[in-house]
């Protein structure tokens, strides 16, 4: 099924309507996520978008799942949609594993040290056991299922992607800068359906997570720019709006440059993924660019907003704290810049330009 632009607009409108019916959600020590929002999104079939109907999903394309994720990121929604729609579900599908009910939140774990041992012959999808600690798991304690990337037994090339049911498993309490749950998941001989992934496929799972964070950063940065422009137009000092001062205009223009350049690259990386191209170099570039934009946009937004933007009362921190966290998560700029550098040189020392024109 192909999605027309107006279909996608409709999906975005639906998400906005649902989001608008919920109070702006504040994460604190007592609340780990926005369960009512998730329930409404699931009831509308939005948590199965991008997954074929025959696999239990709602159909639609990667671009639709990206549009949903971006809309929720701009709205600072405290739900595991990016991990669920853009990373875990497509990774499990690609590995030939059965998906859980899309109404149940699903996340992905790529960090920490987890070892997988096959229960049967380990050839193709089958039963495995997992032992170790999956670290910095997005929405740990919230997600019912986790797609865990684990080390394969010694001597076997690649990694193992396992679908873990977290019922009864211990998680540690940890939050990112925005208060989103990022605890660890302790596994001790935990049984799971799993499949052995060749190294390239495992790299694609990590690339998907990086690209998902880049999508979120791009959308949140665009919203932060819009808030900043609005504030600069309203706030009066020295008898005129802040936006009439050239120094403020310069800040806004720099932010617009970051936002626009990032959006163009992230969109192109998503298209590359949708085309079925190897997403690693494109995702690496998108994460590097988005991470840099997150830093600049958040800093300048706070500078323009002044002291009020530094308060808990003001909405700005709901997105700037996420920008500061998302730029680190799934690998920061340093990590992905090196991946991109290596990828661009695989064709040899004189191949940089052809390599660049192939990335997106």
């Amino acid at each position: 099924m192909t999605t027309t632009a107006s279909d996608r607009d409709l999906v975005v409108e639906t998400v906005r309507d649902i989001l608008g019916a919920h109070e702006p959600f504040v994460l604190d020590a007592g609340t780990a996520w926005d369960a009512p929002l998730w329930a409404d999104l699931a009831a509308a079939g939005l948590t199965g978008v991008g997954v074929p109907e025959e696999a239990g999903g709602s159909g639609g394309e990667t671009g639709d799942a990206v549009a949903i994720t971006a809309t929720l990121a701009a709205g600072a929604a405290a739900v595991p949609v990016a991990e669920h729609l853009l990373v875990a579900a497509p990774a499990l599908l690609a590995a030939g594993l059965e998906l859980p009910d899309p109404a149940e939140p699903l996340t992905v774990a790529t960090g920490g040290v987890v070892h997988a041992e096959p229960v049967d012959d380990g050839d193709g999808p089958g039963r495995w056991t997992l032992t170790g600690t999956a670290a910095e798991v997005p929405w740990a304690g919230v997600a019912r299922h986790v797609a865990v990337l684990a080390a394969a037994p010694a001597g076997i090339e690649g990694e193992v992607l396992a679908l873990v049911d977290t019922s009864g498993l211990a998680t540690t309490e940890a939050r990112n800068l925005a208060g989103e749950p990022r605890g660890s998941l302790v596994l001790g001989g935990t049984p799971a359906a799993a499949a052995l992934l060749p190294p390239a496929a495992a790299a694609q799972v990590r690339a998907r997570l990086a690209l998902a964070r880049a999508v979120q950063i791009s959308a949140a940065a665009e919203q932060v720019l819009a808030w900043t422009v609005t504030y600069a137009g309203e706030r009066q000092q020295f008898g005129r709006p802040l936006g009439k001062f050239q120094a403020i205009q310069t800040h806004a223009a720099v932010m617009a440059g970051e936002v626009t350049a990032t959006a163009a690259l992230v969109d192109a990386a998503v298209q590359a993924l949708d085309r079925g191209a190897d997403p690693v170099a494109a995702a690496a570039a998108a994460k590097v660019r988005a991470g840099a934009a997150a830093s600049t946009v958040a800093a300048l937004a706070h500078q323009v907003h002044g002291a009020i933007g530094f308060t808990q009362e003001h909405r700005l921190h709901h997105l700037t704290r996420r920008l500061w966290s998302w730029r680190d998560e799934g690998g920061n700029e340093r990590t992905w810049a090196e991946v991109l550098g290596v990828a661009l040189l695989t064709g040899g020392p004189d191949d940089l330009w052809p390599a660049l024109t192939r990335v997106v």
Partner: protein
Amino acid sequence: MTSSLTLAPAPSSEAAENVRAEVREFLAAERDAGTFTTHVDTWLSGVDPAFSRRLGERGWLGMTWPEEYGGHERTAMERYAVTEELLAAGAPVAAHWIADRQSGPNLLRYGTEEQRRAILPRIAAGECFFVIGMSEPDSGSDLASIRTKATRTDGGDWVVNGAKVWTSNAHHSHYAIVLVRTGPPGEGPRGRHQGLSQLLVDLSSPGIAINPIRILDGGHHFNEVVFDDVLVPGDMLLGEEGAGWHQVTAELAFERSGPERFLSTYPLLAEFARRVADAGDAAALACLGRLSARLLALRQLSLRIAAALDRGELPDVPAALVKDVGTTFEADVVAEIRGVVDVPASLDSPDPLGRALAEAQLHAPGYTLRGGTNEILKGIVARGLGLR
């Protein structure tokens, strides 16, 4: 985001990839034949009329123009592929660059039938080169303050007096499109935009003096073009009398958005990549990756603008934005590479990386000035955001 900054993604193009492969083959053959060596910033400094003619023979100039004017009716995406390949190779494209990029499109948009037929086929053949006649000794960023004046004769011709500066390669060019005052300014803050017109001026006309303005390394690319009672035939008015400001604004969208606004220092990045491939550590690889990610984002943005121009839109705000971000990147390429390698920059360096660093550094002040300073561009972006 505000609609003035949002652009649809560029269409993917098989035709563009096909012509890209042809250009790579052509460039490899030219290099093997020793017709050029790679340099930084060759769209300013790499003048080679014979090379430009060979591009014309291959059909790679005036690519998107109608066939009746010597064009080839290719898409903007195909033209984009050709121009970025030439820039990435550091090929000598300066002779024809302005004519192909903006003077030709300006003539197509505003020129008379006679003007188009007389000039466009020669541009497309790589035989007719143009300069931009906008800035003046007393009018830099404040373009509307220009004083070069054209007055009507009784016979309907024009007499031009004044001077234009920073005219790249006027000493190799045939025509200038000169922004002149032909009428009085109007009232109000934007009144100065009235009474301006564009004239097509043959640079071999009597009364024109072309004096070199050498840049800081001694290179002769810029000129001062002085007009002393220069007679310009009445039929050489470009577009409408008094509409010069509007026409210049349209021209600047072409001038500001192309790949030359972020690829001027690409040959340095390519040289750095060779070093990293040979003996790079993790920090150098990451530096290559960071710069490449910035380049890839700029390229996508620039492609979107090319597609919008092709659809007949006037994306002047995104064009200003891409030039601001892109030219900042061009200068940063030097700074970032210096942060991870210790190679002294010198035009006489035995190390090609040292020579590329030298060329890129010596031209760096120009990147963020030419075609509108980055301060002016940020003002245009701020207006697009609704702040001015």
